[in-house]
């Protein structure tokens, strides 16, 4: 009984923010103490095709950015994490990879900004892409390092000893075994890029309008309803992706 109450309370706690966003995106003239009897309106939602079509294109840009970053970072991270296995003093090198993720993105962006400006990379989608990659690859590297261990290395060697070429051993043995890790890395890298605000704002100087930049824009315009709409756009694919990965990746997603 007590546990049931506790469960309910926790679920309410977890669900409240999403409920608040949905509500805010569907009302206008929101004066205290309106709650159930408010001016409900789908004006903002229907605006996605017109007035707020900027959000739709931001959504597309974010999606493209996050997907390509996630694929590239996972690929590089997999390569680096495998490579580091061969390097003496592995943990020291790996430690370097912890930093970008430890530091708040705004601060990381502030550190990088001057170099991006110098190399003419600021204010462009490509520049933001590279900056995000510098932030995401180390993370993928750390995550995928948990995959590599003595046993995996032995399995690889076993395949080689049976006559597999390195690429065959990689595709036939290592990749299938790494699938859960790769899936998790793809998901996490996608999320980091998808959520990213600080770096994109600083390196993109506002020219690169990802969805987070859009949310901030409407927050600054003092329009909580459109900001809530943008926030829902920001959350929705992740909820979907989460649901999918829950089914596909299963319990492994809880390991990191």
């Amino acid at each position, binding site marked *: 009984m007590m546990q049931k109450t506790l469960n309910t309370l926790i679920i309410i706690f977890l669900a409240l923010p999403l409920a608040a966003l949905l509500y805010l995106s569907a009302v206008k003239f929101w004066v*205290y103490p309106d709650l159930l009897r408010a001016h409900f309106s789908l004006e903002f939602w229907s605006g996605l095709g017109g007035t707020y079509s900027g959000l739709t294109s931001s959504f597309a840009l974010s999606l493209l950015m996050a997907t390509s970053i996630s694929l590239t970072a996972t690929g590089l991270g997999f390569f680096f994490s495998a490579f580091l296995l061969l390097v003496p003093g592995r943990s020291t090198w790996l*430690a370097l990879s912890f930093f970008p993720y430890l530091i708040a993105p705004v*601060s990381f962006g502030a550190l990088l900004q001057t170099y991006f400006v110098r190399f003419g990379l600021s204010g462009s989608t490509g520049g933001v892409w590279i900056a995000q990659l510098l932030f995401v690859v180390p993370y993928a590297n750390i995550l995928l390092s948990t995959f590599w261990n003595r046993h995996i290395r032995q399995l690889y060697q076993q395949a080689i000893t049976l006559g597999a070429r390195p690429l065959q051993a990689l595709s036939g043995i290592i990749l299938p075994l790494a699938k859960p890790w790769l899936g998790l890395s793809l998901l996490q890298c996608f999320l980091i890029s998808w959520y990213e605000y600080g770096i994109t704002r600083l390196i993109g100087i506002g020219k690169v309008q990802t969805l987070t930049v859009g949310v901030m824009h409407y927050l600054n315009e003092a329009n909580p309803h459109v900001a*809530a709409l943008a926030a829902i756009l920001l959350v929705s694919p992740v909820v979907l992706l989460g649901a999918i990965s829950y089914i596909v990746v299963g319990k492994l997603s809880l390991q990191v």
Partner: protein
Amino acid sequence: MKSQTRSWQFAGVLSLYLLICGVPLLAGLGYSLGYSLGLTGLLSQGFTLVHWQTLLQDTDAWRSMGYSLLVAAISMALSLSLALGVAWLHELRSQNTLRRWLLLPLAFPPLVAGFSWYYLLSPSGFLSRLAFHLGWIGGIEAFPVIVNDFPGVGLVLTHVFLVFPLFALLFMHQSAKVRMGALWQVAQSLGSKRSQFLRRVYIPLQLRKAELLIRLYAIFLIGTYEVALLLGRSSPRVMTLYITDKLGRFNLADIPQGHAMLVVYILLAGVLAFGGIKKYRIL
């Protein structure tokens, strides 16, 4: 011959790794350090320690550092306690509905979490309106101020929302892995009471296994930016806000000081992450 090409390849990959995972950070750190020492920057006049001296004497800076640490510590302590409790209660029978809900906050970037909690907790927000309609309060004034407040209730709550579910899931997973239920049975047969088991086995075991992740998330919370921007107080403010204020606000003369604080912040994160890290051979 062959081993020579190999070692070149080796060096090449290592350089690429460094170029992506090391150089940007160190380059940025070097730049900030140089800026704070007056070696670079449009208004710099050559090497000086004056900006560091100003920073050291700036009580505002130290308060903001203390505040960041405090908020992170409180948020972390609450999240961990809640997660430990939830994982303990759910160890015996697996609760799939709850697990699924626990994944939901992972879909919230800090910006969105801060935004929604602001509208839930502010005096004119959802909870206040609900309380009004339930007749618990007579109006806005009677609702306690828990956003932009001093103890940072809203700020901490949002952090708990972001961090606690992850640890709850982790602890459940760890429980299953070490077969906590079996351990508890053994302990009972040895005459252990529940509280003794919790104190001597369950909590230390869980925390020790999660230590690295706890450190990382604590540092993540120290670096909180968007949530603090929306729900924090203007004074004391968290470190990242102190830095961004100094780097890009009205007094150009303050910029080197912002860079100095940035250096302090990064060193702090490094020390907190790797202080005594030698134990973690899992790396």
